[in-house]
């Protein structure tokens, strides 16, 4: 079971637009909500209202500052969840067969009833996409909302991962990255979608769209407003000016 499929006819995944993401964390909350109320063990929190709260999350948003060699530094909000890698190292290390990559659509999942909670798969993932739940003692990871995307009891607009459905900025896209004609594949081609840590050899399915180049200032800013001098002021205003100047 922990052998990877040679190839999958579909590669379902996310395309995340780093240019558009505003770092609102709505996707984090939507993910936590859906995956606590639905499939598998809930994503637990410990000491949630105490001094040292810790919880399980399948999606987290980092914020980075990039300082180019020339020009002004800029901020990039950076959501990160499982990238459903084609050469997923987390799957092959699993001793129980609990971790697997689906042959039909490439989604990487954990069978929680078989997981012994050894944590080795979390060690094998370069991206920090797997977290061992402190209460349930089993490995949790992004399921690409496998219980939404094929769920015919949901209205069609909701058959998307919870994070994609909720993103107010339209920074998250879901689709089949094996189909070169799909909307996500075209986005990746147009915008130069990137792999994270390609040197780790995981071949991620999820892609990240880089921030677009910022506009540069071409002209010097408009001249500063004229000096508020009253020299040569005539008429009524001139009379007031002269009268006030006498005091």
């Amino acid at each position: 079971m922990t052998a990877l499929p040679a190839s999958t006819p579909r590669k379902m995944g996310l395309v995340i637009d780093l240019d558009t993401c505003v770092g609102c964390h709505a996707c984090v909350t939507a993910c936590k909500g859906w995956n606590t109320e639905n499939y598998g063990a809930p994503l637990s929190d410990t000491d949630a209202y105490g001094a040292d709260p810790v919880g399980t999350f399948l999606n987290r948003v980092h914020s980075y500052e990039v300082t180019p060699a020339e020009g002004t530094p800029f901020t990039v909000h950076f959501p990160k969840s499982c990238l459903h890698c084609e050469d997923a190292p987390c799957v092959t290390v699993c001793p129980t067969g609990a971790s697997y990559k689906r042959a039909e659509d490439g989604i990487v999942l954990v069978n929680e009833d078989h997981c012994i909670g050894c944590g080795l798969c979390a060690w094998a993932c370069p991206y920090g996409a797997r977290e061992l739940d402190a209460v349930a003692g089993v490995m949790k990871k992004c399921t690409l909302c496998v219980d939404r995307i094929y769920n015919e009891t949901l209205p069609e607009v909701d058959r998307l991962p919870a994070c994609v459905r909720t993103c107010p900025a339209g920074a998250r896209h879901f689709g089949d990255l094996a189909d070169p004609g799909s909307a996500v594949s075209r986005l990746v081609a147009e915008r130069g979608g990137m792999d994270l840590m390609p040197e780790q050899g995981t071949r991620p399915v999820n892609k990240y769209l880089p921030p677009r180049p910022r506009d540069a200032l071409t002209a010097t800013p408009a001249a500063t407003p004229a000096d508020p001098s009253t020299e040569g002021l005539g008429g009524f205003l001139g009379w007031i000016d002269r009268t006030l100047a006498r005091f």
Partner: protein
Amino acid sequence: MHPAPSIILFTTISGLGLGLLAFLGIGMIEPTGLAAFLWFTLGYGLTLVGLASSAFHLGHPERALRAFTQWRTSWLSREAVLAAVAMLVLAPHAIGLIFFNRPLTGFGIIGGLLALQTVLATSMIYGQLRTVPRWNHWTTPTLFLISAITGGALLSGLPFLSQMLLAWLAVAMVLHWILGDSRFAASGSTLGSATGLGARGAVRQLEPPHTGTNYLLREMAYVVARRHVVPLRLIALLAACVLPSVLLWIAPFSLPAIAAAILLHILGMLTARWLFFAQAEHVVGLYYGVR
């Protein structure tokens, strides 16, 4: 990586046990009767105690039998299978020596080799992880194998072989440390490659994704006590290799000296194993601006 006491104990103790079982199996020592009983009990005991302590690390130890199923792909599963098979195959040899004063050489040799393969599988659990560049290197299996063989020689009470192996162990340890120090840089992973933004400029963390800590940071971004690395390396090297060697040189055939050498060796190995974990940096730390 977080140096969990259960894993440090497991790898050290079971390594010693498997090393001793390998020596007993291959016939480096051939005790009979009561002596054989005591020696095999020690070998099996250490191996089993080590395995039991590794089970404490699991979220669901009651499902541990499932770990025997994925030996085709997983080194962790191979380790479990090999440990069980090695202990089973050695049993007839042990019974022969204890009750009939006769070795069953075939079972002994195959069982002994399987014991060493188990140690190799343990080391490959760490050695295979590209995410931990310090471990992802040939020095990891070399270090684990030499440690186990040296422990086996010490526990078998073979002073001259032990001295020679202790010297090799010292070389393996130092190589693992020195070569390991440049592995992270050689892996090519940086915050720039982790975010894909490296080509656009220098990247630094502005805000972490959460105010508290999380599983990833606790498990994989252990930074405490790294600054004590040099003294700890010296202590490990002295206790695990140099002092036992000196003791065996001064009094090769005195039981107290051998016992003291073994005790020092174990303390040194525990320190070295602690360093093995505490010093290892996981690439996920890059996302959090720590290593």
